């Protein structure tokens, strides 16, 4: 039962991570690549970490070993770190790219450029 849940969560996470990796190869410019890189990879990593959390919780419950408690708590902290830092890093890169003069390709509207 637990094994099936873990496998399903891992497959969802791996699919999103794969899509993120493909996305940064397929998309045409920096901003669209950031969409794939920051969003899909973060989402996929949340799911793979969720699999680890489920596994650790189940083992904690059945074996009552503190190693698994450590594993669950540290995994949650790592996911929170990813959730805080990844979008901020993406924003910093996007802002830096726009300031250094890289414009979005095929853009229908660019308010930021118009107001500069």
């Amino acid at each position, binding site marked *: 039962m637990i094994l099936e849940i873990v496998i399903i969560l891992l497959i969802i996470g791996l699919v999103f991570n794969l899509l993120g990796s493909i996305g940064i190869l397929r998309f045409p410019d920096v*901003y*669209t690549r950031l969409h794939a890189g920051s969003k899909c990879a973060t989402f996929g990593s949340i799911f793979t970490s969720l699999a680890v959390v489920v596994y650790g919780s189940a083992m904690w419950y059945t074996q009552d070993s503190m190693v698994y408690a450590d594993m669950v708590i540290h995994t949650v902290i790592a996911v929170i770190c990813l959730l805080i830092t990844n*979008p901020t890093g993406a924003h910093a890169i996007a802002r830096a790219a726009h300031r250094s003069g890289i414009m979005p390709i095929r853009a*229908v509207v660019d308010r930021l450029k118009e107001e500069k």
Partner: protein
Amino acid sequence: MPLLNFIVTVIACLIFYLILTAGSGTDILIWSWQQFAVGILFSLVVGMVGRNVLVGKDLRMVNPRRWVVLIVYLGPFFLEMAKANIDVAIRIITGNINPGIVKIPTNLKTDLGITMLSNSITLTPGTLTVDVDEKTRELYVHWLDVKVKEPETSESVSGSLEKWIRRATE
């Protein structure tokens, strides 16, 4: 109020240390007394160093009611995020995009609020915060599929997230 800032920072650091070392013993709940002593010592040191960094001028985030709202906020946020990711996944496979940078006005007054809204927007469907105007509190958002060129509110980009964040931070 420097003393209050110091106390809040010490308590936050102590909680973080105790979360890190959970399960170390059985003296005090699930912690050993050594971890408690070391944690209090470290928290005092870090409180001295960073008392004006973690807590700014206002202490409104100390209120536990806001934390409850923040935890409830995770619900709609993950819903938006899941929708977003499936949308972006389809666009990665098909490759049809319609990008652009739009300007959205916000009504958030605090720095933390605008940070949370920006990070939420970056993590949700096909939107990415490129720049922020600190004076007028406007966000410049790169949108993978531009539906409205001149949004009046943040409703069309981020749904109901701004309401939740305003409830949590103001």
